């Protein structure tokens, strides 16, 4: 039964390089500790070559001008670990989370699916590289042999069945002990290594060649286990991981960001990482949650405000409506985008997508448009981005199906239009169950291909058609429906009554709408919501007025509660 191991060498630095790929060409050292007692925790190969070693103080490391110093980040390490597991999970459902830098996976049965084992190993290597990780991949007949080979050999290693001892032989004994051991375990392993060193066993071949009985007498069962591992014959039962589908990426910033442009640059990087992770798991994003931690430094608020003003980020008080809903979720109150209250240091935006999508550029554009409309209002010190995974949409195209807008393009177009006219002024209509004028609301427009309706749905539609006096079938009647064009807001009119009927209408706002009433029909009394504070009662008249282009028909409304007259619209 073949196993594979994916190992990330120098994990702490690798996690940092994943977040900042431009550092790959530089000497990098990762610091840990509280200032001013920071020490070098890990270095990359280039930093090692110029004499930087773990344990040095920050002051010592700073003497080297070409060295890039970065603080250790738990967020980035957890992101890198999640990416490693995603990479492994994309090949096999049986994955063991051995350590933060190591994942072991069971390859049984995958050969027929993914071709021979070396091809699988190379694919793993490439996929990890796509996720921003430089890894070692090893494939062997046992999990332990694969683990040792991945720790010891760079790149891709495939150990044929029965050749484990031969191939693992040159590796140093240190590969048998993981990095993340506790102090006691570390001490024990050091003692063990020192003992073996005294015996002259400095690599796995030498350890494998030691007589078993003598080794057992001196080191006990622990010694025998080590020897079996060195020979590649030991194997442990794989403990498969049940990973939670959590897709989050975060970034802590050393210096606060005050402009949206550099923020977009960082968001792009996070989005690409997220999309890559979703792609390897064959998933798409249904929702994106952006959380920004803001820096309201109480002592430096004036300075900070000046900085914000000068560099173009509007203040929080300049935002049009703090509780304004985004176009994405405007009709879903429980999912509202919410804006943090004053002086709270978290700013959250949620972009709910109508369909599962996986396009980092599209997400970035949508976030940019959203942040332009709702700026954070303070310098940003931490970015956290989470994606709600969902199965990618599957649609069967048809030659004879009418064209429909591409969902990704449409989403971007709608966001841009919402930026022009306002979020609540674009969408599709939904009539409300009321006779009140303007009894409708705007819904989010989703261009989804027609789906077969269930029998219940069809019955519901038929019932609705029967019950609603407004719904008539033009295809059946073969005639057009006279439409009303509304004036929003209704035009206030001065009406002269003759025998309690309108005889002269004068509308100050619109010169066309005035004159003697040539013809009238009405009044039609309507009222409603009398049990509520927003009660309404009105009389409607259909009137004809002469204007310069001929006769035009209008709807004249008398508000019975307020007493005012309005021209509500024109029949067209």
């Amino acid at each position, binding site marked *: 039964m073949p196993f594979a191991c994916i190992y990330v060498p120098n994990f702490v630095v690798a996690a940092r390089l994943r977040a900042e790929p431009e550092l790959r060409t530089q000497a990098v050292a990762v610091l840990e500790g509280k200032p001013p007692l920071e020490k070098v925790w890990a270095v990359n190969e280039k930093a090692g070559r110029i004499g930087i070693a773990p344990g040095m103080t920050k002051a010592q490391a700073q003497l080297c001008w070409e060295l890039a110093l970065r603080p250790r980040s738990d967020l980035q390490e957890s992101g890198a670990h999640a990416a490693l597991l995603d990479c492994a999970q994309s090949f096999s459902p049986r994955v063991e989370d051995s350590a933060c830098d190591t994942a072991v996976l069971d390859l049984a049965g995958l050969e027929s699916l993914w071709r021979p084992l070396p091809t699988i190993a190379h694919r793993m290597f490439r996929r990890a590289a796509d996720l921003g990780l430089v890894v070692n991949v090893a494939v062997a007949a046992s999990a332990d042999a694969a683990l040792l080979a991945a720790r010891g050999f760079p790149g891709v290693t495939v150990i044929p069945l029965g050749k484990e001892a031969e191939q693992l032989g040159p590796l140093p004994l240190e590969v048998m002990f993981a990095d993340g051991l506790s102090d006691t375990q570390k001490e024990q392993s050091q003692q063990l290594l020192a003992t073996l060193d005294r015996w002259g066993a400095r690599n796995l071949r030498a350890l494998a060649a030691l007589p078993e009985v003598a080794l057992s007498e001196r080191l006990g069962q622990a010694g025998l286990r080590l020897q079996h591992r060195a020979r590649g014959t030991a194997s442990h039962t794989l403990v498969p991981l049940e990973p939670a589908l959590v897709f989050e990426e975060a970034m802590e910033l050393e210096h606060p960001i005050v402009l949206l442009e550099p923020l977009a640059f960082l968001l792009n990087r996070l989005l690409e990482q997220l999309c890559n992770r979703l792609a390897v798991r064959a998933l798409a994003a249904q929702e994106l949650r952006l959380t920004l931690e803001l820096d309201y430094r109480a002592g430096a608020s004036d300075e900070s405000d000046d900085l914000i003003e000068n560099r173009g980020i509007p203040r929080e008080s300049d935002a049009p409506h703090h509780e304004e809903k985004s176009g994405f979720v405007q009709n879903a109150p429980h999912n509202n985008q919410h804006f943090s209250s004053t002086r709270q240091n978290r700013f959250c935006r949620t972009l709910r997508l109508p369909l599962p999508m996986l396009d980092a550029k599209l997400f970035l554009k949508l976030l940019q448009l959203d942040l332009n*409309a709702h700026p954070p209002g303070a310098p940003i010190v931490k970015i956290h981005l989470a994606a709600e995974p969902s199965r990618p949409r599957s649609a069967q195209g048809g030659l004879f199906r*009418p*064209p*429909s*807008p*591409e969902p990704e*393009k*449409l989403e971007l*177009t709608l966001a841009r*239009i919402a*930026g*022009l*006219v*306002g979020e609540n*002024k674009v*969408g*599709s*209509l939904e*009539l409300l169950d009321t006779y009140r004028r303007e*009894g*409708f609301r705007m819904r989010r*427009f*989703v*261009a989804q291909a027609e789906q077969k309706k269930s029998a219940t749905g069809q019955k519901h539609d038929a019932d609705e058609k029967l019950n*609603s*006096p*407004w719904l*008539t*079938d*033009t*295809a059946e*009647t*073969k*005639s*057009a*429906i*006279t*439409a*009303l*064009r*509304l004036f*929003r807001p209704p035009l206030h009119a001065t009406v002269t009554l003759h025998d309690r*009927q309108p005889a002269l209408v004068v509308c100050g706002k619109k010169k*066309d709408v005035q004159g003697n009433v040539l*013809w*009238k*029909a*009405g*009044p039609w009394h309507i009222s409603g919501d009398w049990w509520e504070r927003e009660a309404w009662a009105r009389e409607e008249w*259909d009137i*004809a007025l002469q*204007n310069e282009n*001929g*006769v*035009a*028909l209008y709807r004249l409304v008398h508000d019975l509660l307020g007493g005012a007259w309005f021209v509500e*619209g*024109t*029949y*067209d």
Partner: protein
Amino acid sequence: MGNFLHISDRFTAIDPRLAGVTPASRLSVRPAPEMVFSGIAAIDELTGGLPRGCLTEICGPASSGRTALLLAALSAATRRGEFCALVDASDALDPQSAAAASVQFERLLWIRCGESSPQKHFSTRQKADSKRNEGRNAENRLEQVLRITDLLLESGGFGMVALDLADLPPPAARRIPLATWFRFRRAVEPTSTVLLTLEQQPIAGSCSSLVMKLHADSGCYLSKSPLAFSPGRIPITEISHVPSHAQLLEQIEIKAELIRSRLEGKPVGSVAFASRTAWADVKAG
């Protein structure tokens, strides 16, 4: 016969640089656009339907039936399963009328342009000057409409994109540069989108493939009384003595004129049809 050379080969023989030149005799003829049902049979008889990939202008004064035709076209398109967009420059769409015309709302993207653009704010002093403000609002709305139309046509996939400029004053509507209409025409040409505009007077010039003018047959749109279910053709002056509560607006008789058609040399003509009010059918039923 063996020495016969095709005309393009002769070009090549004369000068190799002419190899890429297509002779006029071999230029492909642009196929006639597909025509779709406009929603009103009389209009289809007159024009053959609405052309896809072309700009169609519907113009006329208030109460001339422009909106009835627009809703009929939207209804027909949404019932065909197409997605439509309505760029409403004056925010004038009445949802009840659209429902009565059987427009499928889930397939209609309604964009309500107006004065409350988030990008435009007027000062109090500007608000005081109502005339100037009105002109500025019209310009603002026009700007919004054009930008939105650009975005929609770029996005693609819509069966119909309708621009409702019917309430814009003609001088403001005429300020749209001809280049903009050319751009719209070019954008819509390779697609199957019907680009429809509603306005008071034709404004797109030679960019439109079909121009229709509507006007109401004044005095012939009223019924005699609510008891007379069949509409009568009675002038207003003759029924002015009838009590107002005994009258009902049942239908408007509309005359449609084909002003220009660049499609298959359609002759100029006219046709009459009626648009009925929603309650007329309810009463008749």
